[in-house]
């Protein structure tokens, strides 16, 4: 699957529908859906929210792997921002010290089995994989 999406949260519904269709067509185990949906949304929302200097669409690609899936999101005309280098979130902090925000990329890093970042020619590409584990 390879598709461009407008830079809007309104596109999330279409992304979810396309992901569901791809899972069915590629016969990918549905138990991976929650992790994939979450990671795609968090990365897409991050691109929409923080790269406001362009109107270029965001490319999402999915391909099936043996017992899993590989997903890439590519943003264009963007400054370097490597989400794999985002710091830890203190999930043990008491309520008074917890603030909304900052959890999205942390969750992506926790959910993905592998994650890789590339940047060149003002093009930012993040690729992650999710594979079926015995516990899934």
């Amino acid at each position, binding site marked *: 699957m390879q598709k461009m999406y407008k830079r809007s949260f309104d596109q*999330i519904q279409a992304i979810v529908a396309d992901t569901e269709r791809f899972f069915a067509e590629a016969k990918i185990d549905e138990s991976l859906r*929650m992790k994939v949906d979450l990671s795609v949304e*968090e990365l897409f*929302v991050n691109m929409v929210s923080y790269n406001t200097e362009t109107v270029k669409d965001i490319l999402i690609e999915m391909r099936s792997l043996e017992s899993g899936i590989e997903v890439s999101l590519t943003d264009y005309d963007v400054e370097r921002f490597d989400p794999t280098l985002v710091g830890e979130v203190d999930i043990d902090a008491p*309520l008074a010290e917890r603030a909304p925000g900052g959890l999205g990329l942390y969750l992506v890093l926790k959910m993905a089995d592998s994650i890789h970042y590339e940047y060149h020619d003002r093009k930012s590409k993040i690729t992650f994989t999710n594979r079926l584990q015995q516990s899934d």
Partner: protein
Amino acid sequence: MFEIEFNDSGEVAVSGRLDAAQAARAQEFLDAVGDRCVLDLTGLEYISSAGLGVLLRTHKRLMVDDSGLELVNVNKHIADIFRYSGFDKLFVIRAA
């Protein structure tokens, strides 16, 4: 499809997908809640960090008056997200 409404028990029933596109609607609803609040998550299929932010913001506001949010009928997938986020230590959570 996302829905948030009071059910017959006076709890707030949340269903569907609470993602970044729906977070503002959920926040607007919960901002009008002024007392201890039980969220029935029976129908909640999915939550992202935007939805988690709504729950945390509301919980913090209500905890000022020593009340807060209680999350009930939480399915395994949502419970996993709460655990990854450390929300299992911040909220009273009851499994489905």
